[in-house]
């Protein structure tokens, strides 16, 4: 990407070019709190995922240590911090290992859907014609369909509904990808259709630039505005879909990897008999991970939308100044600040 950057744009300082740094700086008050909290939680989630082999006391499929079985449904104790499951696994270890499965699924599914979705969106939007119409109708149909059901069907196709290998991650990711492609397709296609009529694309055509080059250089670079936001929203949705699939029994077998949704499925009958630890902790792990990613996404959404952005943000993004947080905000009830933000939207 850096190779393509236009030299005419004024150079920003190194710090401001780090992803998200700019957003953190230009946010204020509550928005900054949410963004920072989201980043911290997400970072913790990623760290746990990476370090799971080091910090987890036991393996995800370990049933005994030193020749002694853990025992099933043991309440939390010093040897098993969060107790053991009905299958005799250590809950704490499986919660930690689950982060790894979740992160891998997110990465694979988001990458796959981004590439396919963007490619289809660009081609469809730029070329138009019957291909465009067909793709739009197909994607609209898929988009409107309950995503979980589609993911179920896909996972049946890919793994026959049961995954005994770590390839189960791939099955879950591809299932989720099918659901996401229409979303990227729609966003990128809409942008492409808009950009296609811009003067700079026309001039590129006039000087004889070929279509692939126009698409990659002129359209793609300008069409990716809303991608970071979509990416965060989809990451959290991928996590939830993975958990939903696992909960319905389409997850990854406990001997292959730890998966939170699968563990919650197994905890279903525990709850009725008052065993809370097998359900609570994997569930909390899902909530925290999704919460972190969503907080980041929400904040980015607000910062990108002038109607929702805190009032200092517009000033800051233009000319960096030192009076951080000095401007009072949040007096939405009085009416006047709302007019301000409205004018901001027009400028």
């Amino acid at each position, binding site marked *: 990407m850096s190779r393509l950057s236009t030299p005419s744009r004024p150079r920003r300082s190194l710090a401001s070019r780090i992803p998200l740094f700019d957003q953190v700086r230009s946010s204020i008050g509550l928005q900054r709190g949410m963004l920072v909290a989201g980043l911290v939680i997400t970072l913790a989630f990623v760290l746990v995922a990476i370090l799971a082999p080091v910090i987890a006391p036991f393996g995800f499929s370990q049933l005994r240590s030193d020749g002694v079985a853990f025992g099933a449904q043991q309440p939390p104790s010093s040897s098993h911090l969060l107790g053991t499951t009905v299958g005799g696994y250590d809950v704490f270890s499986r919660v930690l290992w689950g982060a790894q499965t979740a992160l891998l699924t997110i990465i694979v599914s988001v990458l796959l859907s981004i590439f396919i979705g963007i490619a289809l969106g660009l081609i469809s939007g730029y070329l138009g014609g019957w291909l465009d119409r067909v793709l*739009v*109708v197909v994607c*609209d149909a898929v988009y409107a369909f309950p995503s979980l059901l589609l993911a179920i069907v896909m996972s*049946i196709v890919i793994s026959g509904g049961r995954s005994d290998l770590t390839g189960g991650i791939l099955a879950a990711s591809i299932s989720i990808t099918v659901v996401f492609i229409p979303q990227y397709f729609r966003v990128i296609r809409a942008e492409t259709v808009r950009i296609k009529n811009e003067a700079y694309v026309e001039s590129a055509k006039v000087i004889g630039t070929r279509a692939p080059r126009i698409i990659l250089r002129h359209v793609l670079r300008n069409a990716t505005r809303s991608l970071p936001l979509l990416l965060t929203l989809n990451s959290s949705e991928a996590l939830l879909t993975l958990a939903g699939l696992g909960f*319905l029994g389409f997850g990854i077998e406990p001997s292959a990897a730890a998966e939170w949704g699968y563990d919650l499925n197994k905890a279903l009958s525990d709850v009725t008999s008052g065993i809370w630890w097998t*359900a609570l902790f994997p569930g909390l792990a899902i909530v925290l991970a999704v919460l972190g990613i969503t*907080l980041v996404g929400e904040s980015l959404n607000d910062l990108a*939308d002038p109607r929702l952005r805190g009032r200092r943000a517009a000033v800051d993004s233009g000319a960096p100044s030192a009076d951080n947080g000095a401007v009072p905000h*949040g007096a939405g*009830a009085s009416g006047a600040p709302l007019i301000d933000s409205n004018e901001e939207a027009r400028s």
Partner: protein
Amino acid sequence: MTAELATPDPASAAPPVTARRSASSGGGLLRYLIVRFLLIIPTIFILVTLVFVLMRSTGDPITAAQGGKLTAAELAKRIHDAGYDRPILVQYFEYIGQVFTGNFGNTITDNRPVTEVLYTYGGATLELAFYALIVAFIVGIPLGMVAAYFRDNAPDAFLRIFAILCYATPVFFAGLLLKLIFAVWLHVLPVAGRASTGAELQMQVLPGKTGIYLIDAFQTGNPDVIGDVLSHAVLPGIALGLLTAGVFLRLVRTNLIGTLGTDYVDAARSRGVNEFRLVRKHAYRPALIPIITVIGLQIALLLGGAVLTETTFEWKGLGFQLAQYLASRDFVAVQGIVALLAVIVAVTNFIVDVIAALIDPRVRY
């Protein structure tokens, strides 16, 4: 979730391009409705085809369901009897023909028509979706108004976190927690099911039973039965409703912030319209269109969520049944139910678009 991205722009909330194009050339509500109605057909067609192709690419459903249980010869005979050894295209056209006459095939495990499965269990899912929507409206819309009015203040901060938590909590986890607290620990609400056995027996003998327990319970006229049915509905309704409530809250907030900043709201305020009325009438009404459009998308989310909620609460609806068929690897049933749900989703989206068009002339151009 991406629906919210589109909300500030009314055009993007409008139905697919083809409809807009044809409608804008001639104009008129009727024309828009006809085009929009015709668009249901390709939508259903595409989804049914997609599900057929995907499911059939795994092999024939009889092997999937009965694989280890029958001998090879028996298996081959049953595959031949069911016609699964014919060319895939022949099967496809036969299937499409069946679907358009309302025949979604018979389940393999218990050999019932899929439409009968829908008829028996659809009511329960409808009922659950109804409870969930009520919870979503009661919780989401007023709280969204509060959040928008107190924008960037403490109540707003609290409510936004609440909305994100609603979204971040999988329905089955919310269900498990509610179950644990209210059913297992406090013993105030039932653990699972749609009604207790006694109440179910009373409703079974009703001459005009609908399968929708709420209606049936009122038909018995027995307050105990009504109470029983309602108490069973509370936890599943909340579990599924909170998910949608979070979406409504954010949606109402975002759109109200937009309309609260408009000139006519300032004008109304300067005329001395009180603040409550200002939010409730002046700002809320115009913010309603995107909300209605998103409700259409929520139907799909609700149906997906219903599968999970019904499994959590053993709520014997379509979703619960789907999970059962999935577990027994009855892919004809799965294909049938999924195709049927596709029809339902397509039709609800049509209805939502019609309502949006009736309210806002901009949608239909």
